[in-house]
């Protein structure tokens, strides 16, 4: 049973069609990387699945919740997902631990002990428990992103959505984030990553989806599909990246 099921999803901004009748299934414990150029629609796809964008046609099912066209996501939809953003989006006036636990306290209204336990677990998973009382301004980019991951993990979501999470980081900070995601993959977390970084996709994902102009052009097992692209567009995308 797939955790997330996307059927015939279409989204346009005015005249511009960004996602074109897209189907996608994400199985439990799989790590799916969506590759594509800017403008291919991959971030929009993640945002639609994440309930942050309203789409025109199709359907997104996540766990027991369903998103229908032209409907804003209900608050309860966000129980099943955890989103990590490109620019971390931590709350600057809260400590790392508060950032991680605030939703548990104020939205899910869990009791203090459970909140403390989950908060600690989440920060330990990303290796930042000793920075629990630090403010985001005192943390490096990589550390901030890891706290953002902990914040999403603390919700115990069915799937983790990661939108270009290494793109805003200096190269030497990317490794620590990749390390965390790899350990999450190893313990069986379900993840959808959007990235234009092929190496990132190769290291962490087991499935790869290549998007071009709003449609899925290729998908398959990570090492197979990247080594042997079937379509011209994907080959071009990989080729250009290889030259770098």
């Amino acid at each position, binding site marked *: 049973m797939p955790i997330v099921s996307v059927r015939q999803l279409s989204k346009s901004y005015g005249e511009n069609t960004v996602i074109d009748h897209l189907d996608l299934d994400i199985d439990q414990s799989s790590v799916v990387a969506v590759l594509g150029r800017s403008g291919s629609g991959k971030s929009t796809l993640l945002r639609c699945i994440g309930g*942050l964008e309203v789409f025109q046609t199709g359907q997104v099912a996540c766990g027991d919740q369903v998103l229908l066209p032209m409907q804003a996501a209900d608050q*309860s939809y*966000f129980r099943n997902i955890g*989103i990590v953003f490109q620019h971390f989006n931590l*709350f600057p006036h809260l400590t790392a631990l508060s950032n991680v636990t605030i939703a548990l306290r104020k939205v899910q209204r869990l009791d203090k002990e459970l909140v403390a336990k989950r908060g600690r677990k989440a920060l330990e998973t990303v290796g930042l428990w000793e920075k629990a009382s630090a403010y985001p*301004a005192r943390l490096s980019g990589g550390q901030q992103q890891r706290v953002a991951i902990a914040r999403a993990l603390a919700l115990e979501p069915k799937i983790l959505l990661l939108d270009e999470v290494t793109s805003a980081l200096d190269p030497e900070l990317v490794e620590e984030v990749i390390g965390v995601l790899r350990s999450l993959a190893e313990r069986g977390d379900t993840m959808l990553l959007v990235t234009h970084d092929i190496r990132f996709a190769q290291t962490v994902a087991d499935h790869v989806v290549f998007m071009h102009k709003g449609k899925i052009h290729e998908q398959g097992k990570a090492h197979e599909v990247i080594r042997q692209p079937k379509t011209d567009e994907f080959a071009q995308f990989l080729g250009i990246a290889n030259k770098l």
Partner: protein
Amino acid sequence: MDTVIKYLPSLGTSALITVALFIVPAVCGAVIGLMVAIARTAKSLLPRELGKLFIFAIQGTPVLLLLLIVHYGIATIGFRLPPALSAIIALTLYAAGFLGEIWRGAIQAVPQTQWEAARSLGFGRTRALLLLIAPQAIWIALPATVGFLVSLMKVTSLAAIIGVVELTKTGMMIANLSFEPMLVYGLLGAIYFMLCWPMSRLSRHLEMVQHANR
């Protein structure tokens, strides 16, 4: 000189009136201003436009005229208010009109991505505003808010024109009685300076702190 010294106590009493004309409008104006700021960032059109109209009216009218409209104007339509009350009402409207705009700007200065992060964690609009956006907006708004309070303190002097016996009015009376306008108005200026300068310093300090943290 002796006349001036004789009237110093009355200057002290009127200083208290001035402070009252500052604190009451500051607090009431803050409450109304907050409502205006929230209205201006609301989702529906009506509160947004009403807020915009209110701010446009207050910011486009001279404060003195606000005082005159409230005091003499209301008398025309039947109510006779004591000058101090008119002054408080007019200054409250003044404060609300300016604080509302400052705070609207501060709320909108919090990056859209913060709202998004809040939403993705399951927060509804009101809770997101109260718990996550407001603290950031308050910090952003501090320098301009304190800066405005300096203006409010200075503008209390206009209450003299509608007859409130605050600092400036008393100063004018003493100047006339003592025939030493230079001394009296100089002293008056010095008193206002002492009332305003600490707030000006605070506002500048806050600005620097925020700039350094960038």
